[in-house]
């Protein structure tokens, strides 16, 4: 049997709660906007109470931080992420806390999801580039593979407490805002950003610096791409041609 849910984190935990009895016959777990039972699929409605019980169980067994790890894996774009999380929770419920160290397909997939997401999150802590808008807001556009927008925002909010930040996930059409100590997500507006007068000069200085650092004897573009994959170049001023 496949299970459908509304795509929310609480929804996924509700699936884990409701399907425990059927854990040996668990098919795929998918996100679905329509609340309909199709052939062989069952839609599970989100229940905050059940989700809370799963969270409490995970926190009790694995420690308070574990829920954050599950949420990190949840933000992955890997196809098997939902069922891996549900199966891992079932295993933890059934076999106890040591199940997380099992060499089990679902656990390994869960850990792989978590690792990929946190790796990309860390990558964008460095690769995000702010541009100053005319009103002084710092604007950064990026296109992450995994849904890391909400994960990177607290870092920048802490680092720049006095700035207004606008982080834009272009692929998902979402904007993350930080201002006055508050952090929130909103759908992306339609207006094109207007940059400040100094912005261009500052980017040019950065390109000058970037170009000066290359040691020609050691030219190795493959290594560069390994660390800084091509899908990130679009939003990096140093990878744009110099003026």
């Amino acid at each position, binding site marked *: 049997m496949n299970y459908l849910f509304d795509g929310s984190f609480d929804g996924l935990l509700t699936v884990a709660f409701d399907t425990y009895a059927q854990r040996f016959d668990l098919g795929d777990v998918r996100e679905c906007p329509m609340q309909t039972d199709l052939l062989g699929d069952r839609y599970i409605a989100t229940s905050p109470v059940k989700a809370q019980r799963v969270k409490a169980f995970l926190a009790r067994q694995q420690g308070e931080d574990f829920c954050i790890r599950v949420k990190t894996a949840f933000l992955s774009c890997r196809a098997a992420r939902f069922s891996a999380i549900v199966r891992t929770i079932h295993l933890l419920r059934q076999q106890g806390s*040591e*199940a997380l*160290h099992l060499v089990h397909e679902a656990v390994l997939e869960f850990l792989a999801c978590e690792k990929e997401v946190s790796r990309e999150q860390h990558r964008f802590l460095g690769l995000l580039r702010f541009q100053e808008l005319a009103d002084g807001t710092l604007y950064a556009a990026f296109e992450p593979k995994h849904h890391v927008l909400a994960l990177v925002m607290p870092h920048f909010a802490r680092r720049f407490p*006095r700035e207004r930040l606008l982080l834009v996930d272009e692929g998902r059409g979402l904007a993350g805002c930080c201002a006055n100590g508050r952090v929130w997500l909103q759908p992306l507006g339609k207006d094109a950003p207007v940059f400040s007068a100094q912005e261009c000069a500052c980017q040019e200085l950065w390109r000058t*610096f970037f170009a000066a*650092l*290359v*040691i020609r004897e050691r030219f190795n573009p493959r290594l*560069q791409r390994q660390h800084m994959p091509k899908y990130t170049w679009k939003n990096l001023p140093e990878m744009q041609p110099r003026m």
Partner: protein
Amino acid sequence: MELADKLRILADAAKYDVSCSSSGSHRVNPGYGMGNAQACGICHSWTADGRCISLLKVLYTNVCTYDCAYCVNRRSNDIERASFTPDEVARLTMDFYRRNYIEGLFLSSAVAVSADRTMERLIRVAEILRQREGYFGYIHMKAIPGADLALVRRLGYLVDRLSINVEFATPAELALLAPDKKADSIERAMLCVRDRKLENLPVPYGRGRPPAFVPAGQSTQMIVGAGENAGSDRDILLRAQALYSQMQLKRVFYSAYIPVNQSQPCPPRAAVPLLREHRLYQADWLLRFYGFSAEEMMGQQTALDLSLDPKTAWAVSNYVHFPVDVNRAPYEALLRVPGIGVLSARRIIASRRVARLHYDQLRPLGVVMARAKYFVVAEGKPSQAVPSHPEGIYRKLAAPANPYQQVSFWEALA
């Protein structure tokens, strides 16, 4: 001179300094000003040669009174010279930091006028950033050996990391290639930083915290293979080991010599293969995280084996300790298996508490079986697969062609 020109010249002059790490310091932003320091370190970009850029790495000035044989910026070279002002460096740092181009500043300098005068300029930059600009991000600065130790201490309270380059593994090399630098003044400055850092460690149950002094620790750099009588790998690793244990350094960086000057006693033909530098870094990791000593790794040899990584080389020549049973061996023994790292050793230990490990389960746990298969046993290990005598293993593992070897232009044509 335009700011862009200064930046071009002084970034170019600083690029041969290896260190670009921004880790080891944890400073929380108090809710005003700008910036914080992340203990894990963050890389922000990568140059076309694949090295990471995490810091705005520039020289304050490249006007130098010294004449070191290996250095681009030496007095006798005819190159473009430039100097920043403290305000310019602070402005650049703030502008770049605010746009998330960099994790902080790495400021070094040629010795202009005198060591003390140069140090005062560096201190001025740090003061402007910390006090006037309200900057809480990472700062790494070079202490200039020979400067008054009071200045070194003052700088230490402003920055995250201080580094003093020992430059060479042996004092003889230093005397030959950098006649203006004195080994004892380098050592005195390092000791000074070490001792003040120890005095400023937070005391358990103490009241309050002492002001942070060089919280990200001290580092240094050695140039590998410059000149005829350059130190061997053995000299270099023994020196690094001594620096870690006696000077309590956080990092030692190695820099394969790049011939930038056309003169004796550093002949220009003597470019050092990057692979040697790579092997030294691997050996350095074994020193710091894997419980190896330099003597163990080198055995009777003076040079590291270029065709095998140092851990595999050690395992092959000390095959009496192998194969290791992954279901029984203690953590320390697992760490010494080629193909098993810190993380996979921990995962093996956690996993075998639940159930006995099967041979096929090692790869999913992160073990590199291409190397490890010769050195481990586990449930269900296929018996026919591998040679189990050191010569056979060496032949299997030694790199046939050397992927890191630099091919010179003329060789490639021939």
